[in-house]
């Protein structure tokens, strides 16, 4: 029996060395408790997001947290693959940086945190045109789209994407926008359903939508 409470806490404290020690122990028997370990890591990431929101953690911490969470999943990959289907289907969603914007650091932080919270994230990358989002929403039957951008110009592309989804009749798709130029006003400008000032807000919003 492993101390998953400790694992959650070392993840939250970004104690990479201790986290890897625990996960190596978890994998000693082939990873029979990998799923519980993953949940503990996810809970730790949740704390990381909250600490960022409260001003205890900073951007560098989020980048680092995303990296060690990725490492954690990698360590347990085989065991987790063996459990596929046991935990029910994950909510699949789209994440991308919108057209004319090539910034991806914020997007990648959000991706790591969404994945840590159980989403299957289809990362369409950067400079993504509205048509590609619409096409993927249709092909994958997506209900949640998260659009990221750093340039003020990104607001135009976010609006274009929301308009394109509506024009395609995909009115049941929820869209959240986030990034440096985004504020409460961005909902009116872009037509999105929500906006986010932090990765944690994105996670919380998407979780609320997925649970409806």
């Amino acid at each position: 029996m492993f101390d998953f409470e400790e694992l959650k806490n070392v993840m939250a404290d970004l104690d990479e060395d201790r986290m890897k020690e625990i996960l190596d122990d978890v994998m000693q028997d082939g990873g029979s408790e990998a799923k519980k370990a993953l949940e503990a890591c996810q809970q730790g990431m949740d704390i990381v997001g909250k600490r960022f929101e409260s001003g205890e953690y900073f951007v560098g911490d989020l980048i680092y947290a995303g990296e060690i969470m990725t490492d954690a999943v990698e360590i347990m990959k085989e065991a987790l693959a063996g459990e596929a289907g046991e935990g029910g289907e994950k909510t699949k969603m789209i994440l991308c940086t919108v057209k004319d914007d090539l910034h991806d650091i914020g997007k990648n932080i959000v991706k790591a945190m969404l994945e840590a919270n159980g989403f299957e994230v289809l990362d369409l990358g950067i400079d993504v045109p509205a048509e590609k989002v619409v096409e993927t929403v249709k092909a994958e039957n997506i209900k949640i789209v998260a659009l990221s951008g750093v340039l003020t110009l990104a607001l135009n592309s976010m609006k274009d994407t929301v308009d394109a989804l509506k024009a395609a009749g995909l009115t049941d798709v929820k869209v959240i926008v986030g990034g440096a130029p985004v504020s409460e006003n961005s909902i009116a400008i872009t037509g999105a359903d929500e906006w986010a000032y932090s990765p944690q807000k994105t996670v919380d919003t998407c979780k609320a939508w997925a649970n409806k």
Partner: protein
Amino acid sequence: MNKKELQKERIALFRDAANFKHVDRIPHLGCVVTWKILDAGYTLSEAMTNFDVLEKSVRYFLDKYPVDAMLDIGIRNQFNVTEAFGTPGYYYYNDEVVGIHDHAYCTVDTLMDFLNDPDRYTWEKILPEKYGEDWKKKDLATWKKTFSEYMKYTKFVLKMASVTGKEYGLPSMAPNNPMKGSIQFAIEELEANLLGIKGLSLALRRNADQLETFVRGWDEQHIDPIIEEIKKSNGPSEKYCFDASIMMLAHNLLRPEQFERFYWPSLKKLLDAYADKKMNVRIFAEGSILRYADYFKDYPKGVLTFHIEKDDPFEFRQAFPNACIMGGMTTDMLYMSSPEECVDYTKKLCDELGKDGGFIFSENKMLSYKNDAKSENLLAVCEFLNSYKM
């Protein structure tokens, strides 16, 4: 008043504001980069490799918007030189956007190789990795063409300095540092070029001791010689609005204890040297600097001018009562609001922050994209600032 006198008056205006002396009107630094190209009716693709278009954009801007100084006189983000040498580059541009990809010249393990011999490292590591197979194909003709373009660019820089100074009476913001370059702290170079944002974020936790060794070595090469020259200098120069200009961005990544270890010792010794000579340093603090207020609290008025981005200026004044504030006007407001709303807010900034000096109006971000400002809003603000008497 001729242009030379106007230039002198503007320098005095910036200097007085920075020294918390009463000013008759609030000076305005136009924090405008590529937005002026778009506002002049050109695309970035047209301008980035065409000096004529760049010059016309600057002239169009200065004929239309009466600012007291400009952050960029049309010489940033110019691509003739790099394109002559061949792509790919770290920068990218199209008709509306210019940007830079996150990149890393080094790994943590090669940082000291770079520090010990940057020329060799650049030649043997950075350029071959950047250009891949094309690196071996760089022939003499390519090098000649590149240097030729570089010389043309140098002439253009001098020309624009002359145009903005002699024809428009615009002063220069700050001199190069005494070692004839820009001031770059180790942690900024690590973030911008050597490790990149992600690489630095990871190294701060995984390789802290190696980073610290690099930072101290960098200081010996790049910061300490500047300090020695400052000690020999005669103090503030009347030729410039400020005595030095520093860009801060990497502090946004750092935890307080990381700032304390990797950034503050280098920054403090440089600021102390300027303070000893009663010189004023303009610090462009991207993101937020508020949480570091305590570090700067002992400097007397007249040493620090912070060009703030995300920090609320009124909150900033409370936290940094000793620092002149540059900035205040957000791109959000310049794009989303009406001219009347922009002018009302500008008046509030002047009245509440600039009564006894200590405030220089500017935009909070480098205006770069078309959505960063509406022309009529910027125009209304410029006209207000020129006529509003304090």
